[in-house]
């Protein structure tokens, strides 16, 4: 294994040295993004099967800035990091928050945007963010998300039933069907993907949760949302960082943001 890694590293160094070789130029004609397209307005599939959403538009803008082709690849969220490691795609663009646990496995770009976690429940259900109001109730989360880890870490030991689902859309369908009393997910996703749709009219955000302990290694909610890349690819990371700074500076980001949100989703001062 070590030998293979060493050989790979050597090859990478050689490729890096031969900057003018066609092989090097060819390597950066496209970026493949891994996407869990069950998370509107960030990423979802249109009825005709096209990827759409805020993340997708940002990804296209990043590709346009870098003058490369954009390819999107569907992948469920709980296996999106292994799929990145398995080279199914080059980067994760799927509303993924940077957490200490994830940062051990992959590298994260600079901030794309930032949003708290929110708990939604039926209006008048009496559920608040407190553990007491949730005791004995059933809360749905998507498998592999920071919200799943949060609910399992802080709520499950105190008598809250936490049920994991393969996709966020199934969480909502069971919330609507009445199997779930509440669901925990990104606040903007909950707002745009569910509460503002006709189906979500009887439901409301009852609490938002935001981590304030970013130095804590057990900080399950993490800091901001970013693009994830494999650890050994600093060139790609640098290019993506440059592109994010670029589209922030030239107004492309604001334009895309205005298409989806009427507030500042980048949320500059929230972290650090």
């Amino acid at each position, binding site marked *: 294994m070590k030998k293979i890694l060493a050989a790979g590293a050597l090859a990478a160094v050689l490729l890096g040295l031969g900057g003018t070789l066609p092989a090097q130029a060819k390597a950066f004609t496209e970026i493949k993004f891994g996407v869990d397209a069950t998370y509107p307005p960030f990423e979802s599939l249109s009825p005709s099967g096209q990827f759409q959403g805020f993340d997708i538009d940002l990804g296209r803008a990043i590709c346009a800035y870098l003058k490369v082709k954009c390819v999107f690849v569907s992948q469920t969220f*709980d*296996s999106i*990091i*292994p799929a990145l*490691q*398995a080279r199914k795609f080059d980067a994760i663009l799927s509303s993924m928050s940077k957490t200490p*646990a994830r940062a051990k*496995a*992959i590298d994260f770009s600079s901030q794309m945007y930032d949003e708290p976690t929110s708990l939604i429940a039926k209006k008048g259900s009496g559920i608040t963010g407190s553990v007491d109001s949730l005791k004995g109730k059933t809360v749905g989360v998507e*498998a*592999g998300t920071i919200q799943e*880890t949060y609910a399992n870490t802080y709520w*499950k030991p105190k008598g809250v039933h936490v*049920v*994991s*689902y*393969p996709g966020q859309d*199934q969480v909502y*369908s*069971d919330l*609507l*069907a*009445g*199997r779930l009393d509440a669901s925990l997910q990104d606040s903007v996703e909950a707002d745009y993907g569910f509460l503002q749709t006709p189906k979500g009219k009887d439901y409301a955000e009852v609490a938002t949760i935001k981590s304030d302990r970013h130095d804590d290694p057990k900080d399950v909610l993490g800091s901001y949302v970013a693009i994830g890349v494999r650890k050994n690819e600093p060139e790609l990371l640098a290019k993506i960082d440059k592109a994010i700074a670029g589209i922030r500076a030239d107004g492309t980001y604001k334009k895309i943001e205005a298409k989806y949100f009427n507030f500042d989703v980048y949320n500059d001062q929230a972290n650090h």
Partner: protein
Amino acid sequence: MIGIIHDYWRAYLYTDGYTMTGVAMTLWLLTAALVIGFCIALPLAIARNSRNPIVWVPVWIFVFVFTGTPLYAQLLIIYTGVYSLSIVQHTHFLNEFFRQGIDCTILAFGLNTGAYTTAIFAGAIRDTAFGEVEAARSLGMSNVTLYRRVIIPAALRRALPAYSNEVILMLHSTTLAFTATVPDILKIANDANAATYESFSAFGLAAILYLCISFTLIFLFRRAERHFLAFLRP
């Protein structure tokens, strides 16, 4: 690998501290589905061989529908589709039953394996040698006695090899259970994978556990075949 075993061995085998998970859940799903499947397959297989179309056509349709559609679709229909019907939500018993993901999963698995088992048993019954039936009739056996003493025991013996395949396939099908939020072995493997990102170890462990269960089942069926099909050995 060691880390995953250290942190997740209990979840892989029987519990995550709150509910039954892993091997215990997979075996429970398998057993419950097979019992339900066997119980519906036996009468349906007899009905399938009836000469009366009112009896055999519904069975044929049941088998056709459940063997002709993917189990995944059946599970989704029973789990999400049926529960969204208002009659189910407003009938207390149905509501309580379909609310639980595990009930829906066992029902879907049971009906599915029941359909395949019906096809296997019906074929075995159809293969009954005419002479055996004639001999039984000549002894003045009634239809019920004929089936109870001659046709069913012989048919079940003949069906054993095919049935053992169905059991192994059902074991593999239980990996769909997480679709209905049931934490089987594969769900725990996904958890371990999502927490550590050591995919090879996480899913490798799951594969080893499935292999162990498969080998045990194959061993038991070999023993059963040697016992019940002894008359076929040279």
